[in-house]
């Protein structure tokens, strides 16, 4: 109970700080104060998306990894609780992947000129959404819960094999507009963005805050799935 409160308080403070810093810290050409962000030519205020867009796509990757881990765990233990954990990770991963796509698409409208034009990054996230979307179709098509859990575990393992390719490799070896693309000579690879110390600080704090938020959501989701399963077994 106590440890719970510490985590939640930390999350609230961190996320509030990230919101304050990410939205209100000024962009200046020559940074002098600790809270100044460097002005990146061509991006301007739009650069601030990095504090909210990158953590969401990062969490999508993490939760697909979690889905795979608990899928493997289920295959070894045959415990349906592990399947609930895997499903919870998949559901939240899907939410975060959609959030990353929508925020990215909004940003693209103003940075690149159109909401969607099949940049390598956009194409790869679209394929990834199709792959994981079909997992939910697979799950809803099977009634026997052991069979459903087994197939879903195997599918989540196989589909995670494509994640590193679609998230990390393909957008980086192809020419595109997204920061970090192969022909990107203005901004450089994602992590070497022209970030100064302050920008990096807010960015990593944002990653931490979003990760805590993710684990909290995951915890609540899998618990409610387990409770729902328990109740439906009781009354049928």
């Amino acid at each position, binding site marked *: 109970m106590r440890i719970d409160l510490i985590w*939640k308080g930390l999350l609230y403070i961190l996320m*509030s700080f990230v*919101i*304050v810093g990410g939205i209100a810290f000024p962009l200046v050409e020559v940074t002098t104060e600790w809270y100044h962000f460097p002005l990146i030519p061509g991006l301007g205020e739009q650069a601030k998306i990095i504090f909210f867009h990158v953590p969401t796509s990062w969490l999508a990757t993490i939760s697909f990894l979690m889905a795979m881990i608990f899928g493997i765990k289920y295959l070894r233990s045959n415990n349906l609780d592990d399947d609930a954990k895997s499903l919870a990770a998949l559901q939240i991963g899907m939410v975060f992947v959609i959030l990353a796509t929508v925020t990215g698409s909004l940003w693209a409208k103003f940075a690149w000129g159109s909401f969607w034009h099949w940049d390598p990054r956009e194409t790869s996230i679209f394929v990834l959404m199709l792959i994981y979307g079909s997992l939910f179709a697979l799950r809803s098509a099977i009634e026997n819960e052991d069979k459903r859990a087994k197939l879903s575990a195997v599918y989540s393992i196989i589909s995670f094999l494509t994640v590193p390719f679609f998230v990390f490799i393909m957008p980086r070896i192809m020419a595109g507009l997204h920061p970090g693309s192969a022909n990107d000579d203005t901004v450089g690879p994602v992590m070497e963005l022209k970030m100064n110390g302050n920008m990096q600080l807010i960015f990593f704090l944002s990653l931490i805050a979003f990760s805590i938020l993710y684990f*909290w959501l995951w915890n*609540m989701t899998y*618990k*409610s799935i387990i409770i729902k399963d328990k109740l439906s077994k009781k009354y049928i």
Partner: protein
Amino acid sequence: MSFLHDNSIYIVLIITLIIWTGIFLLLMATDKRLKIIEKELKEQE
């Protein structure tokens, strides 16, 4: 007031903070409710 009028990004900031606080409180409430349900189910078994 004219400061906020000239720097309207701070209004966005305040609104976002209020929304985040609301979401956070909602999560707290849901978490608490879930714990109570879990406890009740355990007692029934």
